[in-house]
């Protein structure tokens, strides 16, 4: 007869156990904001298809203080998404050697962040150019 009686611990509230897990949950929660923003844009596209007056109402809603505050939250969340996204990118790549030296994860993360900043800037400049 076996005297074994293994005790299984509960996983309830596991993510509160470690600050690392809390950061992970925040990272995953940015998905809610990404979906919310996609919904805002989707609504805009639907209103655009419905015609001028429908679209004007969507545009007016964007100017409400609620919307502005909401977009500030979206902005903060998406910045965190960008930052955390490029933290994981090195994990998804095989190791790359440059001149016989292994490329450090921090370099890959940094490159991604610079690329994001660059693309965003180009987008803004393009619109400034179109706008003027």
């Amino acid at each position, binding site marked *: 007869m076996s005297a074994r009686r293994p005790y299984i611990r509960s996983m309830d509230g596991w993510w509160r156990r470690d600050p690392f897990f809390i950061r992970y949950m925040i990272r*995953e929660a940015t998905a809610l904001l990404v*979906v919310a923003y996609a919904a*805002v844009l989707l609504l*805009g596209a639907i209103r655009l*298809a419905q015609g001028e007056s429908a679209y004007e109402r969507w*545009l007016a809603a964007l100017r409400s203080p609620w919307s502005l505050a*909401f977009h500030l939250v979206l*902005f903060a969340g998406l910045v965190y*998404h960008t930052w955390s996204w490029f933290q994981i990118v090195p994990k998804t790549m095989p190791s790359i050697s440059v001149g016989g030296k292994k490329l450090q994860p921090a370099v890959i993360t940094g490159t991604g962040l610079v690329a*994001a900043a660059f693309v965003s800037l180009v987008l803004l400049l393009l619109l400034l150019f179109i706008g003027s």
Partner: protein
Amino acid sequence: MKRSNAPIFWTLFGAGGMLSALIGPMLVLITGIAVPLGFLLPADLMSYPHMLKFAQHWAGKAFTFAVVSLFLWHGVHRIFHSLHDLGLKTATGAKLTCYGVALLGTALAAYSLLVIGF
């Protein structure tokens, strides 16, 4: 062991994650703050005639479609996994709901962009 069909959703998740990481914050800033306030960018940048022209152009269509649908696929994939993380056991319903939302959004985006015409 059974081959998982996760690669389909994971690829969409990854594409949406990358796109939103690259331009998400700036897009929010532009469409949600700068243009509505007329700050930095002219307030009429997103006026009806301008956006109509944008959405009638193939590039504008492609961009809008990619942003809306990929952001959705990215988000719902994470939300689905978070539900599992929070202890949701039977995954089928959650899976159908999450990916269903993305599919519906993708279809609505495609439909609207087609209605807008060329």
